[in-house]
Every structure is written in structure tokens, then in C-alpha cells.
């Protein structure tokens, strides 16, 4: 009878208690790691913010057009502060993952492992996206100013097309880096791009030769030659 009580009641209760203690210590470990992450994250944010501000990072962002873009998206803080916040977020996320790992369950271990395997791709895609958007803005503005100075009526259209194609290429490259339906994206892009070009060629070549001529003349040919050419020496 005594053995029955021990095996049926006490032993499971003891095991439960032991497991509860183990879980509690893991939970405590996780809590400590998260709290530590919050503290280190805050410190990292302040350090990054102050260093970047000293290095005039905001001025650089303003020059590249990032500052204005961020403002337009509704952020009220400076680029230096936002960079600090990104670093803070990463530190906290890392601490959270380390805490989850400390729980020691197969599920959390698997989750953490997969996250760290995916992280480089995610960061690379992010960088591709940011650089692509900046390049598209810069080149778009270059085309716009040059086209206006050359007196091309379709200046905004040309600048918009420049930005559009660079952004599309960037998004495709970023998604490819993330491995999201790689083949589907490339095929879709190829079909879309090829389709646009083919449709345009057929439309301009067969359907509306006169219209195409007029359109091209009005949009892309610089304004009609003046009767008298400027012979100014501006300097």
C-alpha cells in the first residue's frame, strides 16, 4: 500500500515539483536576460545616438534625402536617434531570443536556430532595399534636373520611370535574397517587363504609328529649334 502511494502520488508530485523548479529557474533566467537586454539596449541606443550626432550623421542623411523621407513617413525623431532605436531593438530582440533559448524546449531552440539562420538574409534584403531606394531617388532627381535643363517636356515622366525601374529591380533583388518564391518573382517580373515592352512595340509599331510619332515628338524631342540660336557667353 505504501509503495502504491509512493508510486502513484508522491513520485509524480515530486517530479512535478522538480520540473516546476527547473522551469521556474529557466523562466527566471529568461527574465534576467530580457531585463539585461532592455538595459543594454537602452545604453546602446544612447551611445549610438550620441556618436552619430557627433559624426554629423543627420546632415549626411539630409544630404542623401533619407532624413526627408523619414520625416515624410511620420517619424518625429532624427536619423541618429532612429539608428539608436534600431540598435536598441536588435539588442532587445537578441536578449529575448537568448531568453527563449534558455527555456531549453525543442520548440524554442528550433525557433531561435531558424531565426539566426534567416537573419543574414533579412539584413541583406533590408540593405538592398534601402540602397536601392536611395539610388532611385538620386538618379531620378539627376534625370529630372538634366531633362528640365535640356527643355524636355517629359522630364517628370522620365524621372518617374527611372525611379520606378530601379525600385522594381531593388524589390526583386530583395525578395530574391529573402528566398520568397524566387522563381515565381523572376518569372512574373520577366513576363511583366517583357509584356510591357512587347505591347509598347506592337502598339507603336502597328496600331498607332502616327500617334506614336506625335507622342514621341511632343514628349521626347527638345523644344523646336529657335529662329535665333543663343550665342551668349554666360561668364
Amino acid at each position, binding site marked *: 500500500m505504501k509503495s502504491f502511494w509512493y508510486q502513484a502520488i508522491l513520485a509524480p508530485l515530486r517530479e512535478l515539483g522538480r520540473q516546476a523548479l527547473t522551469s521556474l529557474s529557466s523562466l527566471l533566467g529568461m527574465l534576467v536576460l530580457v531585463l539585461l537586454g532592455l538595459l543594454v539596449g537602452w545604453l546602446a541606443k544612447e551611445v549610438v545616438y550620441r556618436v552619430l550626432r557627433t559624426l554629423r550623421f543627420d546632415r549626411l542623411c539630409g544630404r542623401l534625402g533619407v532624413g526627408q523621407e523619414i520625416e515624410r513617413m511620420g517619424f518625429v525623431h532624427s536619423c541618429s536617434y532612429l539608428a539608436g532605436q534600431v540598435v536598441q531593438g536588435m539588442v532587445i530582440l537578441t536578449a529575448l531570443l537568448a531568453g527563449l533559448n534558455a527555456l531549453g524546449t525543442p520548440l524554442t531552440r528550433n525557433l531561435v536556430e531558424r531565426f539566426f539562420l534567416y537573419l543574414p538574409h533579412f539584413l541583406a534584403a533590408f540593405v538592398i532595399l534601402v540602397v536601392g531606394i536611395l539610388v532611385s531617388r538620386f538618379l531620378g532627381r539627376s534625370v529630372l534636373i538634366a531633362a528640365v535643363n535640356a527643355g524636355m517636356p517629359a522630364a517628370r515622366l522620365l524621372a518617374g520611370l527611372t525611379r520606378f525601374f530601379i525600385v522594381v529591380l531593388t524589390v526583386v533583388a530583395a525578395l530574391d535574397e529573402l528566398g520568397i518564391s524566387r522563381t515565381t518573382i523572376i518569372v512574373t517580373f520577366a513576363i511583366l517587363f517583357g509584356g510591357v515592352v512587347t505591347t509598347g512595340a506592337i502598339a507603336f509599331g502597328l496600331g498607332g504609328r502616327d500617334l506614336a510619332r506625335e507622342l514621341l515628338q511632343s514628349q521626347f524631342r527638345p523644344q523646336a529649334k529657335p529662329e535665333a540660336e543663343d550665342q551668349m557667353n*554666360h*561668364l
Partner: protein
Amino acid sequence: MPEEILTDQVRQQLPAAGSVDVVVGIPSYNNARTISHVVQAAQAGLLKYFPDRRALIVNSDGGSKDGTREAVLGTTMDTRALLLVQHPLNPVHRLATPYQGLPGKGSAFRTIFRVVELLQARACAVVDADLRSITPEWIDLLLRPVLDLEYDYVAPYYKRHKYDGTITNSIVYPLTRALYGVRVRQPIGGEFGMSGRLAGHFLTRDVWHTDVARYGIDIWMTTTALAEAFKVCQSYLGAKIHDAKDPGSDLSAMLVQVVGSVFSLMETYAGVWPGLDGSRPTPILGFRFEVGLEPVPINVGRMVGTFRQAVRDLASVYQRVMLPAQLHELQECAALPDERFALPDELWVTIIYSFALAYHRRVLDREHLVKSVTPLYLGWVASFARQTEHEDASQVEERIERLCLVYEHLKPTLISQWPLGASEKR
């Protein structure tokens, strides 16, 4: 150790230090068609006006493929035709050398200055290689103020057609005058005289890898001379006629180099110009005579068209540079019918000051920023051409004087906004 820009071969060709009093420098690039005339004028000027001085003509060439250097060395002249009163004591030496560094007039000047420094010459004159109106008197007018009157820098003073030199008239002259308080009418004229001391001083500055080495050299030299209080005068040279311009030369690239240099120099001398108020005249030496000027055909309609398109299409760029009220005024100007098109002086000056501030604050890529001034500048030229259509040279000069006074009058607003750096929000 400073970088040596003259090759050993060139250094060996140079006369001994102290053996040359004056140097005439001619920067060139594919100017075989006109440079012989310039060399002859320079040589005649040296023989006629400086017969007792030891002189050297230096051609600093940017790698011409049309035989420019050969033309310099092969130019001959019959000195009997010069009717010299005094027989020259020394022959005029010539040296033609390719320059080192970035391609441009500034690098060519640097080589000339280095020669002046090595030879310890007392005075130096630089003249463009494409000049058609240069006479021997120009050499006298550029060098004598340095040799006899102790001036350090001699700027040219020309008679020009009212539509000639419009960047000078609309931006460079009035802005330089308002900033540095000295009236130098042709700060980027192309022909200058300077003391050997100033040429040596120019060499010490670390600017030879910037736009100064290209076509910002003229405004850089003038500004340096004014801001650093060198003794400056102007010499009246008559009319300036030069070879037809390169049709491929890009106006916006020209603006980037010249106006960009003016804006950049505002940063260099930010400790000087805010403390200066008003402006004082600079002496004009030489006999003032009237000259006939060739008409300059311009197409006002096309300029107004470019201006209107810019106000519409570049609004996103201008919003980052100007105040909303300025942009609104620009839009009102753009909406005027062709026959009433005008850009008020006050608006023009505040726009230029806004661009100078935007350049300082780096609100945009600097090249984009200055290139976007181009259509606005064309708008100013169109407005100026309409207003001065029936005016003579003196009336046009009065109009430019009024514009200069607006620049001076509005300078305090520029000063009040200048110290503001990038926004300091957290």
C-alpha cells in the same frame, strides 16, 4: 613636403631663380587657331612696355591635340613693325609645358604660379588663349599696376554687350560685392595681373583637387585677394572678344563650377563677410574709351519656357531650398504672359541667398542643388533682356547697380540665417 607639379625636364628648361622679372601665363587646350595671336600680343607688350625687364611667356597646356604647343613655340614676329622707342635689353623667353593634375584652367594656373615662384618673378599676368581682342597694351595694363604701384591683384575691366557675361551680372559680381564689400566689376574676367607674392600665396592653399582646379579658379583668386585684404585694382582693357564658344559647353556644369565655388568660398570666409557692410569702389586704371560691341543674339522665349517648366517640374526640389512664399512668387512670375514676364530683383536675390544657405546646410546633393539654379537663372536673363531691350550701356549698368544694392540691402537676412546648422531635434 609639398607636391612638385613641374617635371624635371621643365625645371631644367627654366632660367635660374631671380633671372626673370615678369611672367605672362597662357593656359590653353586646343587653341592652335588663336594662341599665336595671343603670344604675339604678349611678346609685343613685353618688348614695348617692359624693354628693360627680363620676361618669360609660359604656355600651360591641357594636352592639346591640335598643335597648340607647337604654335606657341613656333610663333614669330617682326619686331621692326612694333616701332619700339627703346631697344629691348633682353629677349622674351618662351616655355610650353603640359600641366599636371585635374583637367582645367585652375591646374594650368597652378603650373604658371609654380614657375613664377621658382623664378622669384615680381609680377605675373595671365591671359586666355582664345582671345581675339588682346593688344600689347593689355600686358602693360595688367603688369604695371603690380610693378610700379605695388598692387597685388589686377582684375580686368571690360566693355561688354548687355547680354554678355550674364552669370557675372546676375550672381557673381553682385554677390561678391555684397559679401566682401569691394566692387570688382569682372571678378571672373579671365585676364588678371598679380604680384609674385600673391601667386606664391595661391600655391600654398589646398584647393587644387577641387572645382578650383577646373573653372572655379577665377572667382577663387578674386575672392581670396578680396577676403584676405590684398591690394586690388582694376585695369580698363576695352572690349573682350574671344573665339566662338564650344557649342557643347553645358551651362549647368558652368554654374556648378562658378556659382558652386562662390557658395563654397562663403564657407571658407564665413569669418570675414558677415562683418562687412556696404561696398567700396576699386580704382580703375587705364584710359577709358568707347568700343563697338558685337550684338549677342538670344532667344528669350525659350528661356521663359525653361523657367516655367522648372517652376512646375522642379517644385519638389525648390520646396527643400526656398520658403513657401518665395515658391509662390515664382509660380506667379511663371504664370505671367510672355510680354509681361519679369522676375523682380528682390525675389531673385532672396532665391540666390536661399540657394547659398541650402548649399551650406547641404539640404541636397550640391551638384543637384546648383544645377537646379540653371532654369531660374535663364528666367532672370529673360526678364533682364525684356527690361533692357531698348536701354543703352549706361542704363543697363545702372540697372545692374540697382540689383547690387538689393544684394547689399538683403545681406542682413542672409547673415541672420547663416549660423543655423542642421536641425538639432532628438
